[in-house]
């Protein structure tokens, strides 16, 4: 196996070898990434300045007019509002519930492994299946929700949760939160195991109550887990498309349209590829801001906690 150029004393030869292997090993992944991710990303920017319809080979460069259209597009405005509602509630619900579950599970309660599996299981289901399940929960005639309400109140109750503009978006958010809670739960659980037990024990011996301990010691120490959870749920909810597509399709009357949904409709239903591209550019910029904040916060947290 020992080749002639492999004398370890030969520093220059070693550096040449390293360079050779860097190129050989790094080229395939970077090439695939560049062709299938980076190039399309840049192309999207390009298309967003054109009026291409997806079919014809001649299209014009239209400057910023797609972005001007965004300003006057009532549906875009609606989709942006919905995206913000979607992101904020998809952030609060699973994060808070996941934190509570993690704190409860951290108490070394009997059967914690079993509980953990149950809370985490929805993560491995596809958005399509989750959507299916929740369509049935909201089904007006025999859905679980209406059945329960009828049982409790004793009155006939046939509200169509997903077909009413007032409740459609929020109903999907509940389904989404049900699936995502397990993720924030495990991240918080990982954060909890990193807290040194001496800190908790000394606070217990100083007579701090459980609530005080959770509020003043544990939750502040979970700050880096929180950063991760927040960034992940923002990014995940920005990507959220599948579950809306199957549960409401953005309806009724666009009341549950988000930017991702709006972009799909404009591009692949109306074939306004140029305009769809400019919506995706806006999506990208939002993601970029979130990622920037995320990396900065993470570095700050690292500096504080080492």
């Amino acid at each position, binding site marked *: 196996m020992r080749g002639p150029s492999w004398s370890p004393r030969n520093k220059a030869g070693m550096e040449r070898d390293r360079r050779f292997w860097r190129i*050989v*090993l790094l080229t395939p992944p970077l090439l695939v990434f560049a062709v299938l991710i980076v190039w399309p990303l840049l192309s999207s920017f390009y298309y967003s300045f054109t009026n291409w319809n997806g079919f014809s080979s001649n299209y014009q460069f239209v400057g910023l007019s797609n972005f001007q259209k965004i300003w006057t597009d009532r549906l875009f405005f609606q989709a942006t509002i919905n995206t913000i509602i979607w992101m904020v509630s998809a952030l609060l619900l699973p994060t808070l519930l996941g934190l509570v579950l993690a704190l409860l599970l951290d108490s070394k309660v009997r059967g914690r492994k079993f509980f953990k599996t149950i809370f985490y299981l929805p993560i491995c289901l596809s958005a399509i299946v989750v959507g299916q399940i929740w369509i049935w929960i909201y089904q007006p005639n025999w859905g679980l929700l209406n059945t329960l309400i009828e049982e409790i109140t004793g009155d006939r109750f046939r509200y169509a949760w997903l077909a009413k503009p007032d409740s459609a978006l929020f109903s999907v958010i509940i389904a989404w939160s049900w699936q995502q809670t397990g993720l924030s739960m495990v991240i918080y659980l990982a954060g909890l195991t990193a807290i040194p037990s001496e800190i908790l024990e000394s606070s217990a011996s100083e007579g701090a109550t459980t609530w005080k301990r959770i509020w003043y010691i544990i939750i502040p120490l979970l700050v880096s887990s929180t950063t991760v959870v927040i960034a992940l749920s923002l990014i995940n909810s920005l990507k959220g498309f599948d579950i809306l597509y199957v549960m409401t399709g953005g309806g009724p009357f666009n009341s549950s349209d988000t930017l991702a949904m709006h972009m799909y409709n404009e591009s692949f239903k109306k074939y306004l590829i140029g305009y769809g591209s400019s919506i995706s550019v806006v999506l*990208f910029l939002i993601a970029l801001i979130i990622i920037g904040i995320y990396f900065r916060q993470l570095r700050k947290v690292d500096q504080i906690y080492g």
Partner: protein
Amino acid sequence: MFGYKKTDGSDIYPWPVVIFIILSILSILFLAPTVGILLSSIKTTKDIALGELWTIPSELYFGNYVEVLDNPAVGQYFINTLLVTVPATFASIVLGSLAGYVFAKLPFRGSEILFLILVSGMFFPPQVILIPLFRLFNSIGLIDTLWPIFLVHTALGIPICSLLMRNFFSTIPAEVREAAILDGANEWQILTRIALPLSLSALAVLATLQFTWIWNDFLWPLIFTQSDEKRTIMIGIVNLRGQYTVAWGVQGALSLVASLPTIIIFLFFQRYFIKGMTMGAVKG
């Protein structure tokens, strides 16, 4: 039943019985939706229409499963999904290992920045690259084949695979590598004969994650395929819903059968799955 183990956690958190009861109630609430699908799949359409979906059935009805398994389209959806999921899982892990090895063991000037750019690919909304990719694959005649789905999932998997493999390779002591070099091994031999065999658990993490994501994906097959023979299982479920509009039991059985591979993987490799989720989330 309501006992608790006396561990160091018990003096930090009081009332183990209360916590156990709260967790039990929450887990029933959490499990209810999934159980609903299971119950629907063993009931007749008539029973469900009469409002009997959420009750425990007096007898088991397997007609829905017979219907699903007899449908030749379902078998085709399964084959298509496997043909995409297995190779794309494999390819993304291979490419991620190559990149991860260089970033961990052969760093160079600017490699940190390059790594950061690569990893941030994990966070971007897929809608941003959708149109140019559609155009690319359309121009080379690959639309309505399984190729674009495989290629895109391979590429989309590179960020997370590079991240996890780099983090794992970094934990391999430098002496191990140096000793191998003194023995005359080259980087390829170190990667394939030493680094990868030492990283089996990281590979298991990635295999579990990637398989689940690709199997469950809906957006890319929706964009890249048109004919029923090329559809994957998640699109298939949605399509078949039209065929079985009010046959809720069949829909339930279909959803369950389609989720079976990922549920089995999850239950067996739960440890790896959770590890991957938490590791992918925190900075390396």
